[in-house]
């Protein structure tokens, strides 16, 4: 078969005109943004409000109660923001894992043969979806803080290795010096000696966000499973696969195509909802930025940093999920 003739590009064509309009629109939008930014800076200077990101190199002057890296109050502000970012990522990452596991179980449970399981999953979804997430976070936090025992007499879990109290969850961590061993927490006074502790604030944020988002993930999974035609399940049964095997080997892999894009949404929601942690005292990036904002008065700069953090986190998450989506997408002929 002869190759079709190559079309010549013309600026007068519909495609050419569209390109010109889009370029014009981009220029106009950039111009508006530049105007807004310069107007803000000019107004701030006129009122004697100091601006600029130079304050990030100054000593922070405050301590952070929970941090993955070591942080002293003489460390600069940018390091404080880094600690906040790590705290946000920590709760987002663990929360995403927990919420996916729980949400998948709930979504699959809606198709169980046992009516009690089906009903329980339905009730869970309706309950946790409809209560505002801030109220759920506050509820978990107040429950944990009210009913856990004082740090002097913690609850012993797993023998004497893990302790749960108002001071948090203390668990052993491996230590490298002086020799390879487990550093086991031992209650003493207000603190635990040894081991690592996560605070009740972290537990409440993790629990609250995971349980809340799991309700949404359950619905996403349910819609994905429902999108796979019944013929697949029938064919699998006729081949002798059990219902569990059918779900795992036939239905879920095909459902992934429908599940992954809305699931990305839920992951982004969980990450952004972690900013509510500021209401219950978890030092995430919004909480750190609030403190920095108050101490330096640089409102515009601190809010800009928060926006930048969430924007980049969300874009990275969705880029990763889109790459995963392409991998699990069913290649159609």
């Amino acid at each position, binding site marked *: 078969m002869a190759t079709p003739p190559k079309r010549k590009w013309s600026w007068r064509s519909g495609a050419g005109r569209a390109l010109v309009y889009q370029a014009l629109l981009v220029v106009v939008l950039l111009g508006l943004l530049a105007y807004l930014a310069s107007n803000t800076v000019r107004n701030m200077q006129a009122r*004697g*409000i100091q601006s600029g990101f130079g304050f990030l190199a100054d000593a922070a002057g*405050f301590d952070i*109660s929970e941090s993955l890296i070591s942080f002293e109050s003489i460390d600069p502000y940018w390091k404080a923001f880094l600690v906040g970012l790590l705290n946000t990522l920590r709760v987002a990452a663990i929360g995403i894992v927990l919420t996916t596991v729980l949400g998948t179980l709930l979504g699959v449970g809606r198709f169980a043969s046992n009516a009690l399981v089906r009903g329980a999953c339905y009730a869970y979804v309706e309950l946790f979806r409809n209560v505002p997430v801030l109220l759920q976070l506050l509820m978990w936090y107040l429950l944990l803080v009210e009913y856990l025992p004082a740090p002097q007499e913690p609850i012993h879990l797993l023998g004497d290795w893990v302790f749960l109290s108002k001071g948090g969850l203390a668990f052993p961590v491996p230590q490298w010096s002086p020799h390879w061993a487990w550093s086991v927490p031992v209650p003493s006074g207000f603190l635990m000696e040894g081991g690592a502790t996560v605070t009740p*604030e972290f537990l409440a944020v993790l629990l609250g966000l995971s349980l809340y988002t799991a309700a949404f993930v359950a619905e996403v999974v349910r819609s994905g499973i429902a999108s796979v035609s019944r013929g697949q399940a029938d064919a699998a049964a006729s081949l002798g696969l059990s219902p569990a095997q059918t779900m795992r080997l036939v239905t879920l892999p095909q459902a992934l195509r429908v599940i992954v894009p809305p699931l990305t949404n839920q992951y982004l929601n969980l990450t952004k909802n972690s900013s509510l942690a500021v209401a219950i*005292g978890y030092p995430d990036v919004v909480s750190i930025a609030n*403190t920095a*904002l*108050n*101490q330096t008065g640089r409102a515009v700069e601190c809010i800009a940093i928060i926006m930048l953090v969430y924007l980049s986190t969300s874009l990275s998450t969705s880029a990763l999920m889109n790459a995963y989506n392409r991998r699990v997408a069913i290649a159609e002929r």
Partner: protein
Amino acid sequence: MKSLSALGLRVSLVIASFAFAPVAMAGKTLDAIKSRGQVVCGVNTGLAGFSGADSQGKWTGLDVDVCRAIAAAVLGDAEKVRWVPLVAQQRFTALQSGEVDILSRNTTFTLTRDASLGLHQTAVTFYDGQGFMVPASTKIKSAKQLKGATVCVQSGTTTEKNLTDFSRANKLDLKAVVYEKLEAVNAAYFAGRCQAYTTDASGLASIRSKEAKNPKDHVILPELISKEPLGPMVRRGDDEWFAITKWVIYGLLEAEEYGVTQANVDKLKAESTDPVVQRILGKSEDTGKLLGLDRDWMVRALKAVGNYSEIFERNVGEKTPLGLERGTNALWNDGGLMYAFPIR
């Protein structure tokens, strides 16, 4: 062609709307207040004794009374005020942007706030200090015994920095848990999440009286770890408004020093022969005119809220649930720090 002109029209309308955006107000606050007929006062969302609304929606407190005095001096009516409750994070932005005329919200005067926010600090209305509150069951008698303790703090205040300074200076390794809302801090402390609570000593008294199931179960430790001079703030660039707010506060203090009270203002204006009293009340000299007001400016302010001691006793004094003594807030000739500049 039709789509091009429609698009062009839409784009130019968007640009025009930005070009005609209202220019932010940077000029005469007093003129704006007079034309509006109201003083817009930024206050706390609810801090007993300083600014809070009761169940009927009536605002009371020391900071509230200062704003009322200013409204009475400027507009003639202490009720011509619009109250804007502000949380700690938004208080300075609200003042900078022009949303409020004055920020009377138990705000500490510091160098950063004076120098880098485009704001002025008027006059101190309350000398405070940061302290600690612990449950009596811990048997702690001094802040130096708080080694390794977890301390509940509200964010958006100078409290965190002071706590860190104190912890470093005394090697106490205190852990601060920082909450955004005051209600969350209170709930966490009274549930036992933290071993101590830190904020201004007046705030501790207020919270203990209002929130504790049994106020006797909590002890306010004697150490004050910082200086917290509290007072109203105004924007820079308006020296006239700055002078008015500052001198109304000094007038309230001068009135106490010379024995002018809410009850005897009219009587003293008519009968007093003390030249200082005559000057304060506008009988012999018109000091109000120099500020841009009229000669009865202090008469109206004092009739509305009384002098400083009456304001203090009514809101935070010994007969109130806070039960604070005058202490450092007494007059300079009475062992305290309140030293009003002379009205002359």
